[in-house]
């Protein structure tokens, strides 16, 4: 599948007032393309920026956080051009991907420095620093030097500095890197909390299941291009014109297969040689299929023991979109 086969990106579920907007934005590094003609709008809530390594995620986030200027096109954050714009930085928090930090500082000093630079008044700084350190679960280790931190600890203080000034827009580049499952859950909770407050949270990741558990709202990137934007179901519907597979296990697979073939929107039915009693149906209209399937089952008294769609998993959507699956 080629990317151009996709229909134009729609923004149905995006808030009317986008907090981040990219318009035909491209960025080259000399001859190398970072991102290529990307247009998108990001509103409140958690949005995942998804793509394999080298897809251009970091470049896009650096454009949004005003570290890079677009080669062509426009980037706006909260209605302003972000490059070196202090008015944007007042309301933007950024957790970079880099592991390097001020190794000679303690986690608390690091967060304090960046908190004071974020404009938190001196009289509130101490309490606020303790607050965010608590929030990211670093209270016990906050007075140790960052040089001795594990990857996960570094990740936590990085997030702490990003949220200390309670930003409206929070950008996190691969925040789950190095975190254990518990850490992921905690991090996820922090981000959900921000989202619940009506903030715009953008999280980049190349690991789908991390994102899957957190949001359905994704931006899909590959090789510098934005492949799709929207709800994971929405994205799925974008590919609905392509065959969508559903595996059904039933006691009467032959009978069900016959029924299925009668349906106009079912393209093919195939028996799974490895799993007796399981048939795999291909349809180009999964929405219709899902609505009518329960009725058919009930009407004819089929016993269905399992029902799953490998395509419903984000990973396969992604693989499908990038032409790897």
């Amino acid at each position: 599948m080629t990317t151009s086969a996709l229909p134009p990106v729609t923004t149905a579920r995006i808030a009317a007032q986008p907090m981040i907007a990219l318009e035909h934005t491209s960025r080259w590094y000399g001859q190398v393309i970072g991102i290529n003609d990307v247009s998108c709008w990001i509103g409140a809530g958690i949005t995942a920026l998804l793509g394999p390594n080298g897809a251009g995620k970091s470049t896009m986030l650096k454009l949004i956080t005003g570290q890079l200027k677009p080669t062509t096109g426009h980037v706006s954050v909260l209605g302003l051009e972000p490059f070196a714009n202090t008015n944007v930085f007042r309301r933007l928090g950024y957790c970079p991907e880099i592991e390097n930090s001020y190794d000679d500082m303690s986690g608390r000093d690091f967060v304090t420095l960046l908190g004071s630079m974020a404009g938190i008044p001196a009289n509130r700084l101490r309490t606020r620093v303790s607050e965010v350190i608590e929030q990211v679960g670093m209270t016990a280790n906050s007075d140790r030097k960052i040089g001795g931190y594990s990857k996960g600890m570094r990740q936590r203080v990085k997030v702490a500095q990003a949220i200390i000034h309670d930003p409206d827009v929070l950008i996190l580049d691969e925040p789950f890197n190095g975190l254990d499952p518990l850490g992921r859950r905690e991090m996820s909770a922090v981000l959900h909390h921000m989202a619940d407050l009506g903030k715009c949270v953008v999280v980049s990741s190349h690991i789908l299941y991390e994102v899957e558990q957190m949001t359905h709202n994704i931006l899909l990137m590959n090789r510098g291009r934005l492949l799709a934007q929207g709800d994971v179901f929405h994205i799925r519907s974008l590919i609905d014109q392509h065959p969508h597979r559903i595996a059904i296990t039933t006691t009467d697979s032959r009978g069900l297969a016959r029924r299925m073939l009668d349906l106009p929107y079912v393209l093919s039915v195939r028996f799974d040689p490895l799993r007796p009693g399981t048939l795999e149906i291909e349809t180009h209209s999964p929405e219709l299929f899902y609505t009518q399937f329960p009725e058919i089952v009930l009407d004819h008294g089929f016993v269905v023991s399992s029902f799953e769609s490998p395509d419903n998993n984000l990973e396969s959507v992604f693989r499908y979109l990038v032409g790897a699956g």
Partner: protein
Amino acid sequence: MSDLTLFKMALRDLVRAKRLIIAAILVAIPALITILWRMASPEEFDSYDTYNTLSAVLVYGFLLILLSVIFGTGVISQEIEQKTIVYMLTRPVPRWRIALVKFAAAFVGIVLTVWLATILLAFAAFGVGGHEESAALRFSDVRDTSQLMQRLREPQDELSKHLQSRLQDNTLRWIAPDAWQKRREEEAKSERKLDAATTSATSPSPPLPSPPRAGRRDRIGRRVRGSRPSDDRVERLAISGINDTLRNDQGFFRAERFNGVELTPETKSLINKRPSGRELTRLNRLLIEQAWPDLIVHRAQPTFNLGKDLAILPFGALAYGAVFLFMATLLHRPLMYGLVFAFGWEAWVPNLPDKFQMVSIMTYLRTLAPHPRPSAESVDIIQFLSGSNQQTISTTVATTVLVSVIVVALGMALLLFTNREYVPREDSE
């Protein structure tokens, strides 16, 4: 508030343990050299000369520049390399202000270090073991060098003759080739006589060319091959030769040699003391001064201006620091280019002829904080590096130029830092 936190953090970064050790060594070097000099030649040690030479060569010419390169470029380049600069650049603090605050911390670091080095140097030169002044002739003590050379070449009076006779072969040769030739012939004659005496005593056989003679001829032969040094060098050799005499010649005063010279009471009382060491040098210096008042100046109070150095050093730190900060905002590997500029450009350009000197910061700093030429016998490389004082540039011009350099370099640096991208190209995401 945030400025202060950033300033403190930047300052703390400068005094990290590893750097502190290196800084401590650097700071102590001038003072240690001073102490070694004093120990190595207590007779010739001169507090003023040592201070001025080491201040010019090591503090201004080395320490100030080195620290400015490291700290000046380090203001941002270290964070760019480490990529931690993103934390700074995504804060609601204008970029120019971040650079300025960090620059201020670097400036304080440079100034405190060079101040400490200067104070330690002054203490080692004047404090430990008291301040010593050498009465030897300095190059600048000679009013008319060509006249002096003339007297050494064709001595008319007793004093000139004596001075010439005490010059070493290698010096005499360039000043008065005729006299040198004559001396060689006489020496050869006396040696032959000596040879003859020894050979006749041991065996009656005819004298053979003896190894010592061959060796000597060889040695002379090698000397002859050398080309004539520059006039300036010959003059320095001459003064150095005279100083040897002043320091070591206990028989320098002879009534007939200073016949008709009006000696001061101080000189007379010194003569009666038959002094040695430092006092001998002073006596001989007084004698030559009073014998040739038209040629040799009365030894003036040497200059030593610690206050001025302490005042000008920050000025230099600001100028160099601003230039190196500018480099860091512009170039990829600023430390490398900075070092080339510091120890290539800044070390050599001030020693170029007149007009070329004008494109070096050091030239102007030397104008503002002059360190008089060390005496003639100082090691040549130091002589060369410390260069000559620029009388041609006025203090006003020097101040104006340096202020302009600071304003322009700092302004450009802040402007660039505000407008350029400092995110290293993403190799892989």
